[in-house]
């Protein structure tokens, strides 16, 4: 998929664990893992908003378009 999820990078920058982020934004660690691995089919705006708020970043910091 040409959309790459850079959630790992942002988590490392903020020195936050996946488990903590999952707890803050209110999703399961399994779902967060699906999102991180790029297996997710879609992301809800509410989830994106919660991630951006928790990591203090912009949606563009998490999602990136890469031409294959």
């Amino acid at each position, binding site marked *: 998929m040409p959309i790459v999820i850079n959630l790992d990078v942002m988590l490392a920058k903020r020195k936050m664990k996946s488990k903590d982020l999952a707890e803050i934004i209110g*999703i399961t660690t399994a*779902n967060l893992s699906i*999102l991180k691995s790029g*297996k*997710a*089919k*879609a*992301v*809800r705006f509410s989830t994106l908003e919660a991630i951006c708020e928790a990591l203090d970043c912009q949606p563009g910091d998490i999602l990136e378009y890469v031409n294959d």
Partner: protein
Amino acid sequence: MKKLSTLKLIIDILYISAIIGLIVFLGFYLVVLFGWDLSDLPFKLKDYNNLSLSQNLYIIYPFLFLALLVYILVLKNFKKIIELFYQGKFFEFKTVKLLREIGLHFLISVFLMVMPSIITPFLSNTTVVKFSLPIGFDSSFFLIAIGLFFMALSEIFNKAFKINQENELTI
């Protein structure tokens, strides 16, 4: 889910009776095939003499036996689907596969049941061709319709499975 449990009960009864029927059918076929004498039995078999005399039965019986086998396969797959529904697994790939198999097996069983009536006139060298209107629930046309319905249902379930998968993978 009372409807589902009633359906399960009916399918279970049909499945067991079909297996018993298959065993009895196989027994009769062996009797006809080897020409065993059943006149010593303590009970009388209806139309036994007609059964053993007809030469066409050698050819007709295997088709009917196979049709019964396929019918048992249909019931077995039906049981599996009901079990999946009991577990709350409605839109799974397995359900799609089983529904498609049921439809296909229905069509095969119709073909196997119709074949003897097509072959028999050629074997007995008769010029009489029987025509019958496809009316009623036991007609071949109805069974073909049921088979195609199951196949269409499998395609619908396949779409539902994809939508469900997409929904589950939406974070």
